[in-house]
């Protein structure tokens, strides 16, 4: 094909222009360390990079959340362990309180020590975190968890049962706090019999809990929260040695309970020891105590008052001590359960955090594959374009310096 003069120049100049453009592109990629200068270089890759960035950022945020959560849980665990320690102290003191050889003064001294430990536990229950919010108040963190009620003499829980959840992975939320309602307040008081009275020839009625676990089992299945009358029992003693246990309304129990007993002997009824003196016939009435809750502060208040205020003698103190022992044990168990739950949560946080870290690394490497320029490749490309530009430039000179006019005389 015939080449015109302008065409020759145009062709060569275009080559130089193109080479320069490619050189510029290679150098820009090296400078920015990326294969994708603008989304047009790799549209689907650019979109992928945007979503990977989002995932990597989310993973980092979740890890931050995990750290914060772990710290909060550590604080809570420390407080709970201290409370556990105090409870152990109290148990020892209660045991020594039950020692029959103590005098009233000694008992009062021990009760005084118990009230000190109570104050310590009270303080721990009202612990605040670094922001001034109460640890165990649930959602109402500005409200003090436990408050002493001057009127009743007991400690009331003023907080709320809410649990704040923190998100540590896309679908994993973990509670960040525990409410005092669940940890301290929800301790069952000891089940026992109350309203013990006698009629007829019976004197000195006593209904004690001989086996707490057996009685608790009976209580669970038979206590009727809807109809109070179903919880009032009567032991009817008929001469010479019969007894029958029915409800106070007269309805027999299912299955009926009856048997023989001598005056002065005790009856064993579902973990209860029913004893009396006097003569038959007669009746002995008792009721099942409605279920109640007693937090440890109130439990300790009861026993302290029994010794210091009411100054009860050892025989009367026995009931109170049994109450206190059972309830303190339950409180200790609950605190221990909560500590284990915290440990479980910490384990979950750690495992989630580790898997997030792995995911982050995988995402980062995926992103690098799409987005980042392989340095070796980049430098090779740069060298190649540089060489090409030099070649094209020298070709230009050679091709265009040839002209017939040079050879005309």
């Amino acid at each position, binding site marked *: 094909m015939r080449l015109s003069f302008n065409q020759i120049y145009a062709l060569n100049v275009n080559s130089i222009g193109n080479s320069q453009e490619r050189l510029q592109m290679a150098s820009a990629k090296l400078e920015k360390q990326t294969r994708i200068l603008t989304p047009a270089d790799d549209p689907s890759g650019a979109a992928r990079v945007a979503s990977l960035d989002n995932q990597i950022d989310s993973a980092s945020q979740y890890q931050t959340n995990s750290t914060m959560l772990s710290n909060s849980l550590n604080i809570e665990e420390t407080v709970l362990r201290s409370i556990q320690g105090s409870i152990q102290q109290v148990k020892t003191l209660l045991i020594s309180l039950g020692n029959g050889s103590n005098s009233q003064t000694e008992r009062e001294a021990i009760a005084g020590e118990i009230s000190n430990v109570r104050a310590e536990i009270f303080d721990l229950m009202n612990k605040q975190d670094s922001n001034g919010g109460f640890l165990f108040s649930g*959602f109402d963190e500005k409200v003090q968890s436990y408050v002493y009620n001057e009127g009743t003499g007991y400690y009331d829980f003023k907080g709320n049962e809410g649990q*704040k959840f923190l998100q540590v992975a896309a679908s994993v939320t973990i509670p960040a706090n525990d409410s005092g*309602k669940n940890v301290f307040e929800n301790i069952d008081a000891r089940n026992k019999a109350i309203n013990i009275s006698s009629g007829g020839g019976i004197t000195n009625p006593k209904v004690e809990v001989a086996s707490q676990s057996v009685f608790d089992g009976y209580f669970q299945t038979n206590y009727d929260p*809807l109809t109070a009358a179903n919880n009032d029992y009567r032991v009817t003693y008929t001469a010479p040695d019969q007894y029958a246990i029915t409800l106070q309304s007269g309805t027999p129990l299912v299955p009926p309970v009856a048997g023989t007993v001598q005056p002065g002997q005790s009856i064993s009824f579902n973990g209860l020891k029913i004893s009396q003196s006097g003569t038959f016939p007669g009746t002995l009435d008792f009721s099942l105590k409605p279920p109640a*809750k007693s937090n440890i502060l109130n439990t300790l208040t009861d026993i302290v008052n029994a010794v210091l205020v009411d100054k009860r003698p050892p025989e009367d103190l026995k009931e109170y001590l049994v109450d206190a022992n059972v309830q303190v044990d339950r409180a200790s168990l609950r605190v221990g359960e909560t500590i284990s739950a915290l440990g479980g949560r910490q384990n979950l946080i750690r495992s989630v955090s580790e898997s997030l870290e792995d995911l982050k690394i995988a995402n980062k490497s995926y992103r690098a594959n799409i987005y980042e320029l392989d340095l070796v490749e980049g430098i090779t490309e740069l060298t190649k374009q540089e060489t090409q530009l030099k070649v094209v430039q020298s070709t230009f000179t050679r091709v265009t310096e040839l002209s017939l006019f040079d050879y005309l005389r």
Partner: protein
Amino acid sequence: MADNLLAIGTSGVLASTGLLNTTGNNISNLNTKGYVRQRTEYESSVLGLGVGRGTTDRLINDFALKQMRRDTSNLAFYEQYLAEASRVDTLFANSANSVGTGLTDLFKQVQTANNDPANNSVRSLVLGSAQTLINKFNTQAKLLTDQQQYINEQLTVYASDANALLSSIANLNKEISGYGLTINSVKPMDLMDKRDEAIRKLAELADIQVLDADNGEKLVFLTSGQSLVLQQGKFNMLSADGNPDPNRKVLKLQLDFNPNVTAEIDINAIGGKFGGLLEFRSQVLEPSLNKLGQLALTVGDSFNTQNKLGMDGNGLIGKNLFNLGSYSAQSFKQNTGSGQVFGTVAPGEGKNIPPNDFLVEFVAPNQFKMSALDATGNVISGSSVTQNSGTVAYGFKIDLDTSVGPFAAGDKFIFKPLSTASDKITLATTRPEDLALASPLKGEYTLTNQGNGRVGDVKITDTTTTQFSTPSQLTGGPYTLRFTAGNQFEVLNGGNVIVGTSAVMGTGPYNNIFASAGLTNYGFDVSLTGIPKAGDTFTISYNTSGFKDNRNGLALAGLQDDELVRKNAVATLAADNSSSFTEAYGEVISFVGQKTAQVRISTESAKSVLAQSQAWNESTSGVNLDEEAANLIRFQQSYAAAAKIISASQTIFDTLLQAAR
């Protein structure tokens, strides 16, 4: 005899001079743009008396020229399109301005606030990053709308360029036709060169066809058939205000000597630089702006809706966090009625907004049909929805304003809320307490319960019910749930009156107890975990001072993964028609990137095609210096030879005279 020889020699000399002139002309005009190589040809004279008349012609291949014009238009189209698209492409490459990073930051701040909801400084950070996100939307939108402005200006500039070229073509036509086409007329070759060059420049601006008229004029048409240069007249190109959107300029033709005669130009077929600009505007710029606007409105509406389901830092039900703006539709000039159409985002309907513009057509004075438009401005079939005033379509609540006058059947409006949405979205509040991170209700179990049931989930669905009508209170509450011996829940209100009883629930699951009791319009519902015993009670009350609660905050953070952005206006029922915020933004990036990549490839191929046709054209019409140099020598020699003839005839004459003395 001798004088014959003289005549022959003279003719030879003159012929060679002419040839040398032509060669010289070719060499001198090497660098003239659009110059076509000329060649002089001589016929021999009759009766063997030397050289006859010579004709100089331009060496031109019409087909090659037409091909080159077509390829020039093509390349100009793609180059213009690429230049504009690259600007938008670079805009999305810059991650500092990126809306995507703005969204990620916002959600990160919400997560941080969830860790410590009662802390006001953390809440301020959330609002701060929301403001940053809005700024990013505003910036990106502004850069795109600036380009819209620029396109309008470019259209005007190109239109005046085109008019200048059309004038010069028409004038040259007149002059060239004045020379005549007879055998004896001189061909005005430089004028023809000029005219071809003007036509080539015009081809850069639009796709044109050229026809030769009988009198030597060249008639120019747009490929869609409208004529630009007629015999003895021309049209002017005009950039005019669009209808109905005056800011969206379009092109029109106007007859030169009678301005009342106008014609519309089919912008889809115009090609060249005009076409590149207009195609870019409708295929890339406006859809990107719409997609960004859709994202802004969807993010704003989702946050608003979720915030209104929570309790803020003052113990009140949350309010809107973002103001989404109110948008007016533009009326077509042909409308006979004088009503106005306005639209706002219907609360909670943000997920139904498709990334399209809308056409509102009135079928009756107060009934209209709303359809979605695609990128070329045509109604997407199957997208028409018939509505009355105030009802919600495609996520917008349309209000009709008849204060100036009523609507007439046949009135049409274009409703383009998404093109300005990214600009109009603002934060409704800067007070950190207005962020509703807590849930407005709490559920508690009574301590003396025998069973171990716990209130699991208090789900809030609607805070506009009567239950929430009094600030900071649960009207009618606190509600108590009581588990009966018959395994049902009785619902008691604050006055201890039973307002409903649930179905028998046996051993669970104890879900949606209020709904089961027939109380479906309270705006909330409760589910229980664990096993309750007969007589157990649970209380639902207002979450007064529950500022450590972050349940609504968790829901706000969860918006990041929810699919809330509608993909298409028309889709089959089973299709996946929603994407999450990040997906939607990624979609915009890849949309722009992919269009730009396509245009890059098209530009490269158009360049090489043009190079080919230029080469072909140049091979016929271009001047080759070496050839001209050879011709110079050749014609010099023929000149010398012809001059020798003259001197030979002189010698003969002298000899004759000598002989006769």
